């Protein structure tokens, strides 16, 4: 195991995070604050509580998930896309480091940043609404698991993308709609029956539901299923990455 290699990639990626610390933190904090002002205070005050949870508090887990998904994907995809774009990937490819170790370095750093941002949003949210966390350990588990899973997904996008447009298109065209339709701002039980069934095909539903359960003990789908689906998505990403490195897809001629 090349621990020094993993550490080098991890620290390199984290250094990139610290260099852009203001953008990294200021932007999610700002957007979350806006969400709370609009949905939590302005609209939320006129909304009935959902399953005994006030609307302002209800959207906290969903908002954190929304940020985690987009941040994980953008961090991990950018992290591996840049060396491909500038050509510095030659060094990674010529180093005595395995595919697994490379992924641990890049995905580990992207997931770390996501967890930090998740924690910051959680603290920011606390300034706007009052909430408690029923299962803090499960909350952390979901946070970390989701960060890792979507960082893996972002890594795949970064490998696949051969232009900055493609790098943007998946988060913009697929992930944001899925996140918004995944029950971040509502319970899928509020949807008509047909759309409830459709929603079950959206992986984000399981993430948000499980995460919300860790806060308030209420969930759209069983927490076991949430956990299972998250793990399944993670395994799919791992299999895809395994295939990428075996075939050299888009990184090795």
């Amino acid at each position: 195991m090349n621990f020094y290699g993993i550490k080098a990639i991890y620290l390199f990626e984290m250094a990139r995070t610290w260099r852009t610390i203001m953008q990294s933190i200021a932007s999610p904090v700002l957007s979350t604050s806006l969400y709370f002002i609009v949905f939590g205070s302005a609209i939320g005050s006129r909304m009935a509580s959902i399953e005994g949870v006030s609307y302002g508090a209800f959207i906290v887990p969903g908002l954190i998930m929304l940020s985690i998904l987009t941040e994980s994907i953008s961090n991990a995809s950018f992290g591996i896309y840049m060396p491909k774009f500038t050509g510095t990937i030659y060094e990674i490819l010529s180093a005595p480091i395995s595919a697994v170790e490379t992924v641990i370095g890049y995905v580990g750093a992207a997931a770390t940043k996501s967890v930090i941002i998740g924690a910051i949003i959680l603290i920011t949210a606390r300034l706007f609404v009052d909430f408690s966390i029923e299962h803090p350990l499960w909350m952390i588990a979901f946070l970390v698991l989701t960060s890792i899973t979507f960082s893996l997904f972002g890594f795949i996008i970064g490998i696949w993308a051969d232009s900055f447009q493609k790098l943007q298109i998946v988060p913009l065209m697929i992930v944001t709609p899925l996140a918004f339709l995944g029950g971040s701002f509502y319970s899928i039980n509020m949807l008509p029956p047909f759309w409830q069934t459709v929603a079950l095909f959206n992986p984000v539903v399981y993430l948000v539901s499980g995460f919300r359960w860790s806060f308030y003990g209420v969930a759209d789908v069983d927490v076991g299923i949430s956990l299972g689906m998250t793990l399944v998505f993670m395994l799919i990403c791992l299999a895809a990455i395994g295939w990428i490195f075996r075939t050299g897809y888009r990184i090795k001629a």
Partner: protein
Amino acid sequence: MAGLVPAIHVFKGSKDVDPGTSPGMTTKSASIISASIPHRFPSCYHPGMKPLDSLEMPRPAGASDPIIAVSGLTKTYASGFQALKKVDLEIRRGEIFALLGPNGAGKTTLISIICGIVNPSTGRISADGHDIVRDFRAARTKIGLVPQELTTDAFESVWATVTFSRGLFGKPPNPAYLEKILKDLSLWEKRDSKIMTLSGGMKRRVMIAKALSHEPNILFLDEPTAGVDVELRRDMWNMVRRLRESGVTIILTTHYIEEAEEMADRIGVISKGEIILVEDKAILMQKLGKKQLTVHLQSPLSSLPPELQSDSLHLSGDGSELVYTFDTQSEETGIAGLLRRLNEHGIDFKDLQTSESSLEEIFVSLVRGRS
């Protein structure tokens, strides 16, 4: 670990100016670090595979294993382009090997495959006894690569990037070693500068520092002096020699034949994906090199006397020079006989001059001969 620093002596007095920060800075003469990597010069001889038949060399007893052995290597890209056609090549321990070839001949593909950047289609490669696929960790730890393109992270500092490279190659931190490398490459003053603020020549040195950061014993330099000014090129040649003296095997590709002529112990010529020749430079020059004797005549001749006419003797257009071509390999050059016959015919001369064909001429004739 500091004791393992290979000797590098470079960029003596090169005026490689960072336009941003220190105008007029002249890099000082780099100190020579004592070479402590044991010398691994080949006291033995290994002929490169696939030499021209006529160039076959005897193989003295006690030949050691090659440091890089390539056998049956082919590469066909997804587009169907066959970049390498069954390449067999052996690089000797401790030598400077120059790989020459025209654009698109397969030089960079060959290097990229050995370094793990491109997958081979078929064939086997071992580096310092380790198969580059099965035992990739051990193989790659031995290899440093300076690619042709100046690809660096713009926002990183020089120090951060060499630290990164060392870690990536699985080596524990060794600030003293990295400091020595940077000092010898005249980059120490710039260690905290972002790479984007450095000049082109400095960036190339950063690439070299990165490649040396994990103490490799095989160094690939892909077109190291492309786009480098004359002074820096000389400094780089010096650095390569110093590295070789410290026991590092160096494989360089180049377009500049004078570079190969100046530096290399052995030369390989690649053309259209095939190694068409591997030979000791001196022997190559000797075997393929033709020497010419130019005789500057006292008074011009209108034509050669019939007795002197031969394929190897020509009269220049204005009749003032005789050009005699001879083979450096033959026992008799025929010069003495020629001069005697000139004397017999009463042809006086004021000067004599010999010249030998350059590697470039040899190279061109080789590549042309194949096409």
